[in-house]
């Protein structure tokens, strides 16, 4: 989503609504709300130019807490609603707020099709690896064996990785960030907003009621460095407290290595490139804790025309060629005939 309007000064307060925030105390959603408000305040675009569209879930209450336009729609369908809005109104800055259940369980298909169309919207997926609002069933991102209300002996489904789904859906922008890493969170949301096309951001979010600590390996400052790689354009994939570990690819097979050991140098390590190429991005999406550290930051950011521009382009092209539609001509159609007064005897009502 590109933010090009003339900038004015806004504060975080300008983006908060008068509704009380009703998340559980301690929920990771609070920090995301606050980060988004900050980013918007800095963008300098007035609140009425934004629309926040959500599905159903704890996370999906988000729009009520913003002073922008918004729709709290139905479970799993926020992206479809956003697509229609954006195609009708390319001028609006459109956000989708969704959860791991909303976007990947019931709404998984809309996620895929929205991404491949590349509608210019920003999707923030709050991934807490649980269904919060319905009080704690496992979600498509919950680890195998997760014990929850609906799986007292452990869940049996292999979890899916939102980033992998996004790439398979031909996403032009995909990124991951963390509720408890506000700087990274804000920077990532900002990049996502600036992207022209669908931007897809997975945010690790703690549900302290039903899934407390499930993502601590990435959230907790104490261990984060060992478990997470912060992606930076043009920089090698290094990680670890001392940044002395890296990722190499051996004929397509990924491995974590220690720089300086077994003759490995920094040159052997993969170098991050957001723009090129699909196969490299595909590899990134397969890096998962605990086998490998998990990348955070912008995985991929490529250019492709947006869906709404293409739609409008076709309309413009036709109008250029044929002129604006003439309703009378359309109604008249190709061939007509006339019935004259004197022919008309018995009426047809």
């Amino acid at each position, binding site marked *: 989503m590109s933010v090009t309007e003339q900038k004015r000064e806004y504060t975080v307060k300008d983006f908060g609504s008068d509704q009380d925030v009703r998340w559980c105390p301690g929920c990771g959603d609070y920090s995301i709300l606050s980060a988004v408000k900050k980013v918007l305040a800095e963008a300098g675009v007035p609140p009425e130019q934004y629309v926040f569209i959500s599905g159903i879930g704890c996370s999906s209450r988000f729009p009520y807490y913003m002073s922008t336009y918004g*729709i709290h729609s139905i479970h799993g369908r926020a992206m479809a609603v956003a697509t*229609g809005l954006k195609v009708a109104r390319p001028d609006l800055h459109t956000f989708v707020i969704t959860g791991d259940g909303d976007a990947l369980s019931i709404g998984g298909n809309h996620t*895929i099709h929205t991404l491949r169309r590349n509608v210019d919207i920003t999707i923030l997926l709050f991934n807490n690896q649980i269904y919060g609002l319905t009080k704690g069933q496992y979600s498509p991102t919950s680890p195998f064996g997760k014990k929850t209300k609906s799986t007292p002996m452990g869940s049996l489904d292999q979890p899916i990785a939102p980033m992998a789904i996004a790439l398979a859906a031909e996403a032009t922008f995909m990124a991951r960030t963390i509720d408890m890493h506000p700087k990274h969170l804000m920077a990532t949301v900002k990049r996502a907003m600036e992207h022209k096309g669908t931007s897809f951001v997975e945010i690790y979010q703690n549900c302290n009621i039903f899934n407390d600590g499930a993502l601590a390996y990435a959230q907790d400052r104490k261990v984060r460095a060992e478990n997470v790689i912060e992606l930076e354009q043009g920089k090698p994939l290094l990680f670890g407290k001392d940044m002395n570990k890296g990722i190499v690819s051996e004929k397509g097979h990924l491995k974590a290595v220690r720089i300086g050991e077994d003759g490995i140098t920094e040159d052997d390590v993969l170098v991050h490139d957001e723009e090129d190429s699909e196969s490299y991005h595909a590899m990134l999406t397969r890096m998962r804790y605990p086998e490998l550290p998990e990348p955070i930051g912008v995985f991929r950011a490529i250019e492709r025309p947006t869906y709404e521009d293409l739609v409008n382009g076709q309309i413009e092209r036709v109008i250029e060629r*044929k002129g604006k539609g003439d309703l009378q001509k359309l109604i008249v159609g190709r061939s007509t005939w006339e019935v004259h007064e004197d*022919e008309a005897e018995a009426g047809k009502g």
Partner: protein
Amino acid sequence: MSLEAQPKTPKEVEELPQVTIRFAGDSGDGMQLTGTQFTNASAIFGNDVSTMADFPAEIRAPAGTVYGVSGFQLQFSSSAIYTPGDVVDCLVAMNPAALKVNLAELKHGGVIILNEDGFTEQTLKLAGMDRNPIKDGSLGKYTVHSIPMTQSTLRACEEVGLTGKEAGRCKNFYALGVVCWLYSRPLEPILDFIEMKFKDREQLREANKRVLRAGYYFGETAELFTRVFRVRKAHLPPGVYREVHGNEALAIGLIAAGQLANKPIFYGSYPITPASDILHELARHKQFGVKTFQAEDEIAAICAALGASYGGALGVTASSGPGIALKAEALGLAVMVELPLVVINVQRGGPSTGLPTKVEQADLFQAVLGRNGECPLPVLAARSPSDCFEVALEATRIAVKFMTPVMVLSDGFIANSAEPWCFPNTGDLDPIEIEHTDEPNGENGRFLSYKRDEWLARPWALPGTPGLTHRIGGLEKQDVTGNVSYDPENHQRMVNLRQAKVDKVAEFVAEQEIMNDPDGTAEMLVVGWGSTYGAIRESARRLLRKGVRVAHVHLRHLNPFPRNLGAIFEKYRDRPVLVPEMNKGQLATLLRSKYLVDTQHLEKVQGRPFTTVEIMDAAEELLAAKGAKK
């Protein structure tokens, strides 16, 4: 009219008031095209016409099989008609399967025109026929004309330079030529069509013209035909006419609505028979700013349309029964957020996948009652192809006036049928006025997103407007402010308000008209809705000729019912009320519960429309039974 248009040697010309022809052949034989061209020629000549297409559910089943037969029926008439005809006067059959499938509906003594070349050992076997009906005398009670059409077609094309396969494909125009001669139809409109259609394909153009003429001249020359028929021009109300199909008229109506409202149409849809053609048609008219969106499924389609409506476009979505089922949850959201939305259901045979290419009216319950919670919305039904235009316009008017989703019911019969349309002048169409709030409507500059106007509609404030930011959603909301509210009394109030708003639509739309009973003395009342219009109207007229007076009420508004409908039932109290429906009595159920009127039901759930006779018979029986009781 040129010479070509008149049989040169009219052996014997018989005048007929109207004729019903059915063209039947393989899916690949071009029967739909053939029928359409004959219809067109008849309409331009000045007959009233009415058509019906009958597709197989398969795309192109193996040639010669009975389930691959594609049919096209039309009635053309010297007076106003309303149906494609009950029984067939003339059957054109390109192969044994086509003959087999359609023979039952040919009248005794009717004309059969066969492609003799299509009756081979193999095709007979494919149709499950032991013997060749052309030869075994089994068609004795009909007038059979067996013509080697394929051969003749190939001969006619000889010099054009087509391959044999290409040339063979033209044989439908040969059949058309023969039929045109037999029914004294001018060839010119058809020749014009060929000219246009094959503009860039010289050889095909030439071939088809030659073949058409060859068929026509064959009729003229051959000794086969001892007489030809003529159907005079119909006496239609004066005006300029065109032919229009139902789905086409819906598309044009939607575009017109957009133009009259000065709003872009956003059409979100997922393909499904028999609704897909609306999408195809709209996609061709981008110069009107129409945005068509082929969604990943029906749910995405309606949700996107709703999103577009929030943004200020006219959101529209369409499907057929199974797809409408999938939209039910989102329709609930639309009712709750109170945004305009037009939802079209082109009904087909159900339940489930059912009979996808056939007609039925069994989605009325689904339209009016098929959602969770108290979830009312206006429901309109089109009664004929051209009526689709009007209904699309009216649905849009209601949607924007009342800020509500509106359901439009059409069906597979209307969708694929054509009729002459005395189309309007755009200048005569009322504009659709829409006001977008642009100022706070509450105290202290607050915007109250659920403060209602005199029609109980909430304001349509567009995103982007400063000072009016607001959030809507599927949770119950506080009256006036639109904030989320779990308050018990507020919920009751909102449930009541949503119902009252929809009920108010009855004040906005026209009163119900009674047809065929100017002095109110009819012996009975027939109430219908949707595509039974033609059959009921025709039977009422024919009963009148027999001296039986039947009042006809045809409902466009199925929710809410017209405000005077109760009074109408009062008026006809003690007279039988017949409700013919292509379902098991869905409208009847709604009428009975609302007005406690003891309706009699006439049902037909067979994937095809009522014939006039069926309705006449039911009416007469009902009257006889009543008489007997007295």
